[in-house]
């Protein structure tokens, strides 16, 4: 009987604990869900699964993170849901892609902006690169720009869509080189855009560094330049940046991936996640799986991400103003 009363008391205390909004010490008490706004098997989904696989460890959150996909309209469906319907209780996380959601919010027609979300930590940074077919006559960005000068608007090149990193990179290139190009957005994302380059349907393309690296290893493409402020020493130490080739292009198109929560999530929970989540990304098993998948990592804390979001907002507003 005593045991029974003790048990009931513990159960009551536990219930009171969950009901009480102030006591977040015991968070998380149940498994956490993380929304990915792209389909299962895509790069964002695949990386999200790897970086969260150690969440259940005792030294991490102690509770597993389950990935839930809400794909559609280039991520707009998932992020709309996350901004308007997701519960801000700390049990609903989301994956963000910068510059995608910022560019989409500037373009309009969606219900989110950087104000709708609270970043937790950043795990990856996949820069855009310029690729051409393996047998292309172009061997440097200078060749590409010269061709574009001789044929204004005639240089066709593919990318994953409008208002995504590839499109931003394309706009930056047009602006920096002072030429008119024919950007062809692909309806099947980065993979479709790469196919168009390999098949020779377009003269070149902007694509993800990780995918382009694999395609170059397979002997299908040449990589002519990186849209980032520094070379990628891990995968492509020999490929110069756009800046080195004389085009004033920064890292505004780099595809940053990380974890966020909806606005209104209790501050203690945000603080706890911001402290623990980056250590999950630093886990050795996570790092080796990411390296094996050819996915460049860039771990950033909540403060660094807040700064990066604000900087992107400014650059993109300026860049997209002319559209």
């Amino acid at each position: 009987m005593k045991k029974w009363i003790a048990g009931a008391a513990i159960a009551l205390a536990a219930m009171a604990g969950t009901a009480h909004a102030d006591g977040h010490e015991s968070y998380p008490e149940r498994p956490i869900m993380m929304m990915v706004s792209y389909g299962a098997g895509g790069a964002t989904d695949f990386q999200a699964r790897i970086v969260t696989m150690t969440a259940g460890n005792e030294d991490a959150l102690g509770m597993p993170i389950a990935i839930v996909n809400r794909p559609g309209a280039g991520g707009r469906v998932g992020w709309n849901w996350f901004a308007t319907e997701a519960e801000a209780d700390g049990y609903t996380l989301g994956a963000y892609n910068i510059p995608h959601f910022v560019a989409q919010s500037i373009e309009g027609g969606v219900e989110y902006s950087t104000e709708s979300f609270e970043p937790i930590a950043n795990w990856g940074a996949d820069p855009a690169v310029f690729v051409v077919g393996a047998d292309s006559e172009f061997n440097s960005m200078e060749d590409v720009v010269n061709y574009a000068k001789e044929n204004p608007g005639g240089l066709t090149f593919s990318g994953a869509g409008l208002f995504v990193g590839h499109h931003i990179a394309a706009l930056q290139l047009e602006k920096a080189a002072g030429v008119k190009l024919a950007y062809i957005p692909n309806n099947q994302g980065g993979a479709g855009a790469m196919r168009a380059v390999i098949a020779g349907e377009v003269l070149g393309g902007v694509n993800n560094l990780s995918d382009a690296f694999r395609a170059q290893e397979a002997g299908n493409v040449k990589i002519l330049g990186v849209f980032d402020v520094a070379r990628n020493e891990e995968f492509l130490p020999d490929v110069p940046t756009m800046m080195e080739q004389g085009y004033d292009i920064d890292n505004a198109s780099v595809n940053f991936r990380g974890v966020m929560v909806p606005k209104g999530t209790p501050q203690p929970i945000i603080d706890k996640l911001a402290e623990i989540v980056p250590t999950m990304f630093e886990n050795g098993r996570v790092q080796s799986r990411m390296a094996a998948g050819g996915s460049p990592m860039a771990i950033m804390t909540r403060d660094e991400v807040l700064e990066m979001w604000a900087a992107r907002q400014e650059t993109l507003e300026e860049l997209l103003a002319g559209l």
Partner: protein
Amino acid sequence: MDFLFYMGDVFTPINFGLLLLGTIGGLILGATPGLSPTMAVALLIPFTFQLEPQQGLILLGAAYTSTVAGGAVSAILLKIPGAPANIATTLDGHTMATKGEGAKALQLSFLASAVGGLFGVFLLIFLTPVLAQWALAFGPSHLFWLAILGVTVIGTLDSSSVVKGLLSGCIGLWLATIGFDDIMGAQRFIFHPSVSGGINVIPALIGLFAIPQVITMFTKGRSSDDAEVISVKKHPIRLAFLEVFKRKAALTIGTLTGSIIGLIPGVGGQIAGLVAYDQSKKFSKESEKFGTGHSEGVIAAESANNAMVGPSLVPLLTLSIPGSPTAAVLLGGLLIHGIFPGPDLFMNYPQVAWTFIDSMLIGQILMCIFGLYIAGLAASVARIPHAVMAAIVLGLAVFGSYSVQNSMGDVYVMATLGLGMYFLERFGFSAAPLVLGLILGPIAEANFIQGSMIANATVGIGSYFFTGWLNWLLIVIVLASISYSVWMEVAQRRYTTKDDAVAKEEALS
């Protein structure tokens, strides 16, 4: 002959156990409406984290193979295609089931699947380098013409008249425009938040096929308490073998069409079954029997959708480009183990690559054996009273639609389309052309826009879409397909008379 050398690896106890697990699990997942092969493979990927690369791929390969075939079970018994690939199977398969020949239809479908599937995997083994070039040959203009070819099929597919077929196709094309458009990101017809991501094909498929069935079952359950039990005729497997190999034309057309279409990135399995069904109908001596529970229909559709499995992996394994959504998920599964597909895949990881392919070969055979066993159980499904069956199907329909994107919006879409389809069916319209419109609309549109953007920057639209032998070949097939439909219409005058409508009504209820 490398594939024979590594064949032994498939039969180590743990590998073979995984193969069995993947095959049986795949059949069950495939038979569940809404769980498409892509989703089944995606669900399994986290489990492969703990396995060796070779073992992980065996599991994924077996699951891919058998989910495609498993979709036929619900298509035949419940008239709910498990995935778009199984739409064509419902046309004759379900009609056979209502006549009490469900067991026979299932046996035929699994045997045809195995024949098509084995052929497809052998193509993958022997012709990969040649086929890789062929897969790259299809640019935006060719995909556009291919989608138009699909549209020409719409009219003659399972409707009481060509005009009604075309009308339901148009409804499908319109539904496809809802949501953000694929390329420009413009918003179209978003009148409710549920459709902001567009109409997803899987919930639409479930709604259009399952809901009219459910309503019919409920109405029938009320009118007669002792709903007549369809007696399921036992059908010896030996006879099914004879039947499949007697229908050589359907089997050949299905297998070849499936293999060729499977190769084309982005179109793949969704329309392979339907195009094969239509082609074998046009070439068959008994074309008027199609749609009335004719075995050729089942054989063509199912051999095609399994034949596409092997070739659909060609672009992935050789060029590292996923040709279908399922291949994209498989790519994720490979990368997670540090394996980069590409031309040197078979040099660098022969053990993994060949064992994977071998497991698909053995998987086809296992799938066929278990499938034939399931066919024997088909009788029990038919013995369930209508009211109970309707409740089960309704539950599966809601579950299947929700699980695609974890979204209630998809359930609303499913219910709305289903209710609408119930009334359209009363007027002689049918669901298959509508779904085909929904699938082909985005392919035709996106490739037309992409093609014209490239054309405007280079040679101009006229010469982009109308030069090159592949464009002309497709145009000629499109024209031939249209003239055939017109000729059929004129020759047979397939107007729906009042008697036809009554007969159709009786067949439905």
